[in-house]
């Protein structure tokens, strides 16, 4: 390991400080320009809210809108390894790239539709277990009990560990001979499983890891929601003779909906696009058996240099998620309150 010397510390602070300084200068300059235009020149009544939002809007534009626009531009190009700098852009390339997503095998063994189905199964299993696990744990933690803070801290540990470290640790635990999963199975009298050689079991392995990693987020989110429900509702229900299940069904669930809807949408998007866990635990293998859409997209772009195709492919994935989010919001009515307000 490199020793941590004062030189390195000073250099690190200097670099971070420089960045903060330039960001501060940019924000102040932006605000000055906005002030001169909105307040001095246009004498705009709602200048202050606009000025307050401006840095965030600029950040979104630089970090999201520009890359997204550039991605669309690349989707209509023939950029590849052999046309890295001198690529052409045109409708014909865009159409061809988009069609290729569906008609050409994205990887060697699996096509887009197989990958889509696998991604769907991966997302559904993970999100269902995240929500169920998170809900059960949150309800348990929401009751009065001794040592609640300790339980809560321990349950959040998977979330607190950097995902890379957790995934690599799990990868070792699925080792055929030395991993604790197989040792446990053998102690229970079951046969050891070749987790990293058999595509089916490898898929189960990555699902287990991701469920383990994802439950704490849902638990914390739902716990926050549960604590915001007034106990008066439950008192009234108990007076009316409602059972525990009825209280859960008619009080807890409806009042959790505004919390659950964004959490589930986020959960679906994160899981659908979860690259880290699969890449670190199995690398998409064996036999491409654990590849999902995003890992295959990564391979297409960074291993095969198919930049135009990759950009079109990422647009298709984005559109799927957009359609899902819109439909889910309509059906669940999760943001109804926000719209009505």
């Amino acid at each position: 390991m490199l020793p941590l010397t004062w030189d390195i510390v000073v250099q690190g602070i200097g670099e971070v400080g420089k960045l903060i300084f330039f960001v501060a200068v940019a924000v102040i300059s932006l605000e000055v320009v906005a002030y001169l235009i909105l307040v001095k020149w246009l004498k705009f009544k709602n200048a202050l809210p606009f000025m307050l939002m401006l840095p965030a809007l600029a950040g979104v534009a630089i970090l999201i809108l520009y890359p997204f626009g550039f991605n669309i531009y690349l989707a209509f190009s023939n950029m590849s390894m052999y046309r890295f700098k001198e690529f052409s852009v045109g409708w014909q390339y865009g159409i061809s790239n988009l069609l290729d997503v569906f008609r050409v095998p994205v990887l060697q063994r699996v096509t887009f539709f197989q990958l889509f189905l696998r991604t769907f199964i991966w997302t559904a299993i993970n999100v269902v277990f995240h929500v169920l696990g998170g809900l059960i744990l949150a309800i348990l933690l929401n009751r009065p009990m001794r040592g609640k803070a300790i339980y809560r801290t321990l349950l959040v540990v998977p979330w607190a560990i950097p995902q890379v470290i957790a995934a690599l640790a799990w990868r070792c635990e699925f080792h055929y001979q030395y991993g604790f999963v197989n040792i446990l199975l053998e102690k229970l009298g079951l046969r050891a499983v070749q987790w990293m050689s058999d595509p089916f079991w490898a898929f189960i392995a990555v699902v287990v890891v991701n469920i383990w990693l994802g439950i704490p987020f849902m638990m914390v989110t739902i716990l926050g929601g549960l604590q915001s429900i007034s106990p008066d509702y439950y008192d009234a229900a108990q007076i009316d003779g409602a059972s525990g299940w009825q209280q859960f069904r008619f009080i807890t669930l409806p009042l959790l909906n505004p919390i659950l809807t964004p959490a589930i949408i986020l959960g679906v998007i994160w899981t659908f696009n979860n690259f880290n866990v699969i890449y670190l635990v199995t690398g998409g293998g064996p036999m491409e058996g654990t590849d999902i859409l995003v890992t295959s997209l990564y391979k297409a772009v960074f291993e095969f240099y198919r930049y135009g195709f990759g950009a079109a492919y990422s647009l298709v994935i984005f559109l799927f998620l957009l359609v899902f989010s819109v439909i889910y919001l309509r059906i669940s009515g999760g943001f109804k309150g926000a719209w009505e307000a």
Partner: protein
Amino acid sequence: MRRVFVRMLVCVMLIAMIVPLGAFAQKNMTITLWTKESEAEGVLQEIIELTKEFGKAHPGVEFEVVNYGVEDLRQNFQSAAFAGAGPDLLWTVSDHAGPFEAMKLIKPVDALFGAGYIDKFVKPGIEAVELGGKVWGVPLSVGNHLMLLYNKKLVASPPKNTDELIKVGKELTKDLDGDGKPDQYALVYNLNEPFWFAAWMGGFGAWPLDGTEPTLNTPGVVDALQFVYDLKFTHKIVPMECDYDAADSLFKEGKAAMIINGDWSLSGYLTDEVKKNVELGVARIPMVTKTGLWPSPMTSGIYFMFPEYVSADKEAVIKDFVEYICSEEIQLLFLEKYMRLPALESALKSPLVTDDPIVKGSSDQMVVGKPMPTVPEMRAAWDAIRPNQEAVMAGKATPADAAKAMQEACENLIREMKK
């Protein structure tokens, strides 16, 4: 309010002016070097020290050394170079030369240094980065090849051929605690990784590419797949699952008699802690009895590559730095400390190479190795081999079917890459 605002504005303007003025006042040249070397072996620290040493003779020249994993370095350099920025010098592996040359991101070095300088290096070292009649990297060290490493505490002499390997292997794979599972293995290596499989391919007279054409559906490839399948399922002398880390740990702990690993790993097996379990010996990977051929691990090396956008004034300093690092003295330092085989013809004749049994074993293996194809098509070959090799090693495909699938996949990938 207005006064405060104006004062704030003046302060910001002043500071904004002072920062760039300070930068001008320094008049330093900072050279950004991206290297694939990490801290683990101590090579990164060594590089930093060498840049400081070089800086003493070149006042005003400073280096910023950044470490990336091999794949991250490739991807990050592509992205940075596309944006017209990035490092001034690359310290990386030979297989990056193919894609970087195709993307026009690096410049040839033969024109930069002259043929006289390039001729000082061993031929395979130069051939590994020769594309379109031009040389695209200056070799720091050659090799990067696999070899058979054995633990003399468990096996006195290494097997000479595959028949002997299997015979000895069955004796060395032992269930020591009687739980029905082996606790000591004869041989460990990264079973599912195509780079390891390529050595066996060579032993069966096959190779992934002929120029830029895939040659994966051949009897040699089928035989090689059958052989690695048999090691696992028929002779059972390798673990049921074994990736790089597992193989490395088993060997270091003295639970494996032999490992197939690269020259980069040698120094890791010579530490005091590992020496408690391992008395290291180095030999060629056993000859394939059926063909009478030595397995031919892919050879490559570590190279300096020059991004095409580097300015002329920086280039002159970088050239000096490359000549300094590639000098005989520094190459021998890397050999002594990190077991890296020098790329300079003269350094290879040093007693440090000829008299050390481990280095000698390594160079003896390199002689039968084959340069890794640098053409971009090799990328397609790797990715075509991997899932099909995995299928064979999981008992899910026959060697013949896997070889056929490899060929088809490779042809498809090359077609898509060229679209």
